[in-house]
Structure formats: structure tokens, C-alpha cells
């Protein structure tokens, strides 16, 4: 990993540079990605550019490769061809954990939480990448560890209130409603202080009102300078909230552009949106 990439890891209590004042070059991109599993070609020649302070939608029929692409960006898969880049640096061999430290957060199609722990603990887990306390310092109860812990928890509380979960801070995660679990995952992702957050079908199972709230949250993230990748099936929602949209079909990009362009594209309508 080249050392010229600016890592958002600094002293624990220095104010992080708000993402909107970072260089405009802040991008997470997939360049000409190919991925196959055995004989199945999941992705071919796929390129996508996620910019800071932008909401980028990723749509397409089932099996088109959306989640595969998300997994490639977050590091769970390695591409067979092509390159994943962060600010121009090749990220392809970086582990999932390393990418979390570089500011890439994600949510999962089926929320992955710690069922027996309260909401607050689940959220503060996201602060791991920039927590400084190691095992020994923690075990010996050094005072600064306690201070850092309290600060991380305080921020997690703010994030939870921010996404609307302030009323369930102490509730066990497995007692949450489906929507609450989804918002909790987002809060956890935000605790990572990400530059980019990749959302895997976050609107799945949400009511109309909750989807509207989700849209507000996503817009707030964008305005805060975070780049949001939104993989979704709720196409109305995608076109409302996104700045740009990429459409996949059978592992290839068939259309890319502003929401209106994509929504009115003939092929997108044919393979996905319907008449």
C-alpha cells in the first residue's frame, strides 16, 4: 500500500478534516472490473466512480452483479481483472480491515449485528478503526483508554439520535424491528468516520415513511461530504435521492448518468424498469 494515500487516521482527539474540504480528487472507483466464480461471469468490464459528497445509485435486475461489485469495493472479493482505486491508489489487494481504516464503510443486505448486545454497543463497534487503545492499555485500565471510550460512546449516541434510534439505545439488537436494525447498521458505519459508505439495499422491508427518513439521512451524509453508494431495488427512491445512477445488467454497465437520463433510457426500461 503506497504511503502517499492520505489516511484519515490521526491523533485521537484532533478534529477530523470535514470531508467537504478535502481535495476534489476524493474518489473510490472500480476500473474495468471483471469477476467470475468458476464458470459464472458475475461482472465484465464494469467501471464506476463514487465521488465524495455525492449519492451514486446502483440498480439492475437480480443477478446483475450489484452486490458483487459492492463486495469488490469493500474488499470481500478480489477482482479477476481491473483495478479498484481510492484517490487513484490501487486498492485491489487491501484487506477489508485495511479499507475500513481508509474510510470505506458498508451495510449488508441482511443486517449483521451482534444480537445479544445493546444498540449502543453495536454502534460504537464501528469506532474500532480509529480507536487507539490496544489490548494491554485496555487491560491495565489506563485513564486515557477510559476517556477515549467515553468519547467514542458519546459520538455513537449522537449518531444514533441522528439516525432516529435515540429511543432504543439500551435495547438488545435482536429485539429491534427490521427497520431499526437497518438504521443501526448505518449508524455503525458512520461511527467509522467513513469517507465513503456503501449501502446494500437499505430500503428493503421499510415502510414509505421510513424510506423517506432514509432519504433524509442519506442527503445529510452527502451534504457532510461522504460519498454514498446506494444499491437498491426501490427505483423511485433511487431516482429521488441520487445524483448519478449506474445500471447493471448481466454483469455489465448498460447505462450511467443523471437519474432522469437513466430513468428514460430505452434499454434500462426494457431490462429492468418495465413499461
Amino acid at each position, binding site marked *: 500500500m503506497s504511503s502517499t494515500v492520505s489516511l484519515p487516521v490521526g491523533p485521537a482527539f484532533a478534529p477530523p478534516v470535514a470531508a467537504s474540504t478535502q481535495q476534489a480528487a476524493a474518489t473510490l472507483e472500480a476500473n474495468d472490473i471483471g469477476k467470475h466464480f468458476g464458470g459464472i461471469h458475475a461482472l465484465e468490464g464494469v467501471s464506476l466512480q463514487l465521488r465524495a459528497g455525492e449519492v451514486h445509485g446502483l440498480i439492475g435486475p437480480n443477478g446483475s452483479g450489484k452486490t458483487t461489485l459492492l463486495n469488490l469495493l469493500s474488499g470481500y472479493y478480489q477482482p479477476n481483472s481491473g483495478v479498484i482505486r481510492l484517490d487513484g491508489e490501487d486498492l485491489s489487494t487491501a484487506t477489508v480491515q485495511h479499507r475500513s481504516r481508509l474510510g470505506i464503510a458498508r451495510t449488508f443486505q441482511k443486517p449483521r449485528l*451482534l444480537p445479544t448486545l445493546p444498540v449502543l454497543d453495536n454502534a460504537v463497534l464501528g469506532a474500532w478503526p480509529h480507536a487507539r487503545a490496544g489490548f494491554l492499555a485496555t487491560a491495565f485500565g489506563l485513564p486515557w483508554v477510559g476517556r477515549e471510550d467515553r468519547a467514542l460512546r458519546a459520538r455513537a449516541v449522537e449518531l444514533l439520535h441522528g439516525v432516529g434510534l435515540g429511543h432504543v439505545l439500551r435495547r438488545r439488537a435482536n429485539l429491534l424491528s427490521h427497520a431499526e436494525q437497518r438504521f443501526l447498521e448505518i449508524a455503525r458505519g458512520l461511527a467509522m468516520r467513513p469517507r465513503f459508505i456503501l449501502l446494500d439495499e437499505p430500503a428493503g422491508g421499510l415502510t414509505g415513511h421510513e424510506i423517506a427518513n432514509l432519504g433524509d439521512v442519506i442527503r445529510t451524509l452527502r451534504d457532510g461530504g461522504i460519498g454514498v453508494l446506494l444499491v437498491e431495488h426501490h427505483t423511485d427512491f433511487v431516482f429521488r435521492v441520487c445524483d448519478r445512477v449506474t445500471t447493471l445488467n448481466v454483469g455489465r454497465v448498460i447505462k450511467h448518468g443523471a437519474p432522469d437520463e437513466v430513468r428514460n433510457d430505452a434499454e434500462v426500461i426494457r431490462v429492468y424498469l418495465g413499461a
Partner: protein
Amino acid sequence: MTANLRTGIALAVALLLVATLPRWAGDQYQLHLAALICVYWILIAGLNLVVGYTGQLSIGHVGLLAIGAYAFAILAGKMGWHPAAALIAAGALGGLCGLALGLPSLRLPGFYFAMATMAFALIVGEIVLAQVGLTGGGVGLPGPVFPAPFDTPHGFYYLVAALAVLTTWLSWNVARRLWGIGLMSIRDNPVAAQAVGVPLFRAKLTVFVFSGITAGIAGATFSSLQSYITPDTFVFELSLFFFVCIIIGGRGSIVGPFLGTVVLTALPELVAPLAKLGNFFYGLLLLVVVLAVPEGIGRMVEVVIERVRPRVVSNEPIEPDLPRLARAIGAPS
């Protein structure tokens, strides 16, 4: 009364009880039992982080106990080291062996890992039996005595109680901070743990080495308490006993496994028929807990309390506080 104040008072009371135990304990036998509980707990408190928090099902820690015990018996006994130095060395050796065991086996999937730890315990038994010159083989070794004031039952109790309190404090610190949540994420959802940057292998290895150190220290004090150790002292079933204390007490808790240790150590002593059943009883208890209350007896108590006095669960809708969110994202911590 805030939760913190309550915890503080409970802790103070507990410490007071521990400190004054020799007065109200009754007879020498009960004092011995209390010391044994402390010794076991030194090991189990460390093992708890491995099994209860990180979810690594290690059933071989009796091997590390044996290593600590024999190291102490050989260094402080045969080789005449000062017992304090030998104690530290036993802990260090336990940690080293934990590293040697953990490095190859922690990458293995669950059953493979459990078998590897079991094999480790059996191998330690084999080596101890075979290296007659070093360990006395089947005859065994005497357990060295600590210097005054720890050479009386009272004094020894205070030594192991202090070590037990120290180990509890160390593991409690890890458990209640972010590290504890990180460990539990490895146990409950490794994919999520990866996503937030938890280094799976390194974290597992770290707690495993820690548990090796505590096992080594426990082993040293164990050999002193037992006054004489032979390979028969370290049967595989003891490993199982440690393991069961944690599972029954409940994973993800410090108090649960501690109570489990106290109950399971004292029970066969107090209820004679159970002593005969011995390990059958532990197996039965484990099976019942796994089938009926897999989260342990601690959780079962919570569930019962919940039935008796249910907390009103409000079902408010999710209403984001967008300005607060914006501040949290952009603001310094």
C-alpha cells in the same frame, strides 16, 4: 441510585467478602476450597475472554495449567528459584505455549480448533509422563511452598485471592471497553467484525496468549495448593470443567462464569452424591444449558425477571434528528 453507584457498591461488598473470608469461612477445609476456587478462577477469568467473548471453543487449557504447574514445581523446587520468579516464569511459559498452540490452530474452523486444543492437552500429558528425568514421570513432583507470609493457609489464600482479583480486573477492563465488543463481534458476526476493521486472527491470538499467561500462573499456584502434582492431576476432564463453568455462567459476562466456577467447584464438595457422578454431572449440566438456555444461567435469570416484571417496551417510530446527525458527522469527537 445510578447504575454506576450500584456497581461500585456491589464491587466494594464483594471485595470486602473476599478479604475477610478466612474469618467467616469455618474450617481449614473451606479455606482450602476457597483458595482452590481462586486458583481455578485465575485460569477461567483468562479463558473466559477466549471462550466467552471471542467464541473460540478451546478445550485444552488443562495442558497450559499443567505446564504452569510443572514449570513452577521444577523451577522453584528442583532448581531452587525464588517462588516469585518461578511464578512469573510459569506465567510467561504459559503465554509462550499459548502462542505456540494458537498460531497454527486459531486459523482452523471450529471443530478442527477444538480438536487441536484437545490434542494439545493430551500431548502435554504424554510429554509430562515420558520426560521422567524432568517431571518425575508418573511419580510426579512436590509443589513448592511460597515464602512467608504466604506459607500458611491464610497467607496462601490472600496470595491467590489477590491474584484472582487482579486477573478479574484485567479481564473486566477488556470486557467493558471497545475491545470487549470487538471480541464479541468475532464471536457473533465475523463478517461484521471484518467490516469495522477488527483484525480477526491477531485479536484471537492476543486473548489466547493472555489466557495462556493466566493459566500458567494458575498452574503455579495450583501446584503449591495441591502440595504434590502428578500427571493424573491434569486429566482432560479438568479442561472440560473450566469450559463448562464459562458456558453455564453465560458467555459475554464476567460475573456469570465466576459464579459458575464457585458453584461447580463447591457443589461436588457439598453434595456428596454429585461427587461420585463427577464429570457425568458436568456433561449433563452442559447439555441441559445448551439445549434450554444457551446463553447461560445468567441470561435465564434475566429472562425470568423479565417475565415477572416486564419492562414496558415502547415502539416509537424512527425519527432522525438531521441537524444532530450533521453535527456528529462533521464535528470533532
